[in-house]
């Protein structure tokens, strides 16, 4: 069982990531808020000791890898990396500005700590399979984590990769589907429904779990369980909320790419800072 203290550590990091992500996007005035916020709790768990990484040595050969295939979640990944010391916090204010190291979509050549370039949806599924195969072939005891969006799972390439991962029994690959139920044009179920994405992965030969993707304890336990399975890749379907934790983005339909006014940003940050204070004091 995971300790209360550990859960608190996850939740504090998650709040900090949310605060920094809103600051980044608020500073620019627009961005992919919805999908950046929904995956924050998973990032917080992964970067709180679950992933075997060293911020001082980002390309350490024996590290665990993370492929954020829904590359538009870049801003919350950058916030996480900065908070973990991969680069200075000030850099977060350069998001999407000319010459930045922090582009809208993740880029392994621009950002310290980003393992794979993503942006064209579906691509990360294949590159993650390649990383897992490559590391296994080299005899590395490393895990490759992959974050997919629910809308992204409409891409055929995801299922090509899923088939091959199962064929090669890649138990060093753990995928998450950030099932926030929304995509750019609306609700996923209304556009091209995945019906049951976990079941689909299961039928492709994966081990599948479905959990509350905003609950850090559940995320942690699901990862631990996924690691225990051998002979199969694992998927964790995260029931999430698009825009989660951002007062002006959560619960609205058009929150994939949206504007963020100064007033909205300040109000959202105030609420999160208050929650952070409460949590730290508790």
């Amino acid at each position: 069982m995971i300790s209360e203290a550990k859960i608190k550590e996850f939740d504090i990091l998650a709040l900090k990531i949310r605060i920094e992500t809103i600051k980044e996007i608020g500073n620019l005035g627009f961005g992919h808020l919805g999908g950046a916020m929904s995956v924050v709790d998973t990032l917080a768990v992964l970067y709180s000791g679950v992933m075997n990484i060293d911020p001082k040595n980002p390309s350490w050969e024996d590290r665990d890898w993370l492929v954020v295939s829904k590359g538009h979640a870049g801003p919350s990944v950058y916030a996480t990396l900065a908070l973990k010391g991969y680069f200075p916090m000030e850099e977060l204010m350069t998001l999407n500005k000319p010459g930045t190291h922090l582009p809208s979509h993740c880029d392994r050549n621009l950002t310290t700590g980003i393992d794979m370039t993503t942006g064209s949806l579906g691509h990360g599924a294949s590159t993650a399979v390649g990383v897992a195969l490559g590391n296994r072939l080299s005899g590395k005891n490393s895990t490759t984590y992959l974050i997919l969006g629910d809308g992204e799972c409409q891409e055929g390439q995801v299922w090509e990769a899923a088939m091959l991962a199962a064929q090669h029994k890649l138990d060093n690959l753990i995928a998450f589907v950030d099932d926030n139920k929304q995509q750019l044009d609306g609700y996923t179920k209304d556009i091209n429904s995945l019906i049951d994405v976990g079941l689909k992965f299961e039928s492709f030969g994966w081990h599948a779990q479905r959990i509350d993707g905003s609950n850090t304890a559940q995320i942690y336990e699901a990862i631990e369980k996924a690691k225990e399975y051998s002979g199969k890749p694992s998927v964790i379907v995260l029931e999430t909320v698009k825009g989660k934790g951002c007062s002006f983005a959560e619960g609205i339909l058009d929150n994939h790419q949206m504007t963020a006014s100064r007033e909205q940003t300040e109000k959202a940050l105030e609420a999160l800072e208050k929650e952070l204070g409460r949590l730290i004091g508790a």
Partner: protein
Amino acid sequence: MSIVIAKENKEEKVMMRDVYCRTLMELASKDKNIVVLDADLIKSIGMAPFMKEYPDRTIDCGVQEANMIGVAAGMSATGKIPFAHSFAPFATRRCYDQVFLSAAYAKLNVKIVGSDPGITAAFNGGTHMPLEDMGIMRNIPGITILEPVDSVMLSDIIKQVAYKYGIFYVRLLRKNAIKIYEDGSTFEIGKAVKLREGKDAAIIATGIMAAEALKAADILQEKGISARVVNMFTLKPIDKDMIIECARETGAIVTAENHSIINGLGSAVAEVLGENYPVLLGRVGVKDLFGEVGPEAYLKKRFEMTAEDIVKKVSATVNYLKKE
């Protein structure tokens, strides 16, 4: 670079695919990082011996070209040196976004091999006949595009490609090539080879059209036209100096390619000439048409790609200049 040009241009006894396999096996025996990916064409490309010797380093993705390229990109990020093969249209057009972004934009190290170029797809017909592969690949920033002309060049090029970092597209004739170079010749990527001297015109040829160009030069000689023949085996980066030298010294250029004349060798040469040394240019190749089914010899005639067609194009170009 040490090149000896073959005295006779005869069909080679060895198949190109067997040399490809043998070369990769030689590399793999010394380097654990060499890996091979395919999309259900291991048998077609003759890689069964590689798969038998190195089963762990052979990833047959099944019929998944897009995934294959992504997997190759991911493997290369971990230090592997992947050679990913399919028929040329499926190794390029079918997975262009994956080659463009997962491999090239991400600055990874992937070697893409597309077999059965142009009309050599013969009996597989129009759906399998790549007449645009070099054209679309040429638009990828930083890519190197190679079309080894015979088994001697193939073996040398594959060895070089393995140890030059970046995205390479190798257009690979699967069957027997016409011998152009003597055994032991070595080449420099990006440096075209002058196969024959000539002063009235220069034929710049690639792939199976190099042998046609040599035949054409013989016929032209009898007609009193001295035609130079150049093997432009690297389409990108193209040998600008060689093109300008040919333009300056002959004043007339004809390109010959087993590809659409749009966006392939003819276009690449036209770009160099237009910006540096404009001279009259004729292009031999497929003219804005889809491929079709049939024997290679039929298709060569059908698409006006024979030595005779090169002769006609060179004669027309030289005669036009004389009238001027």
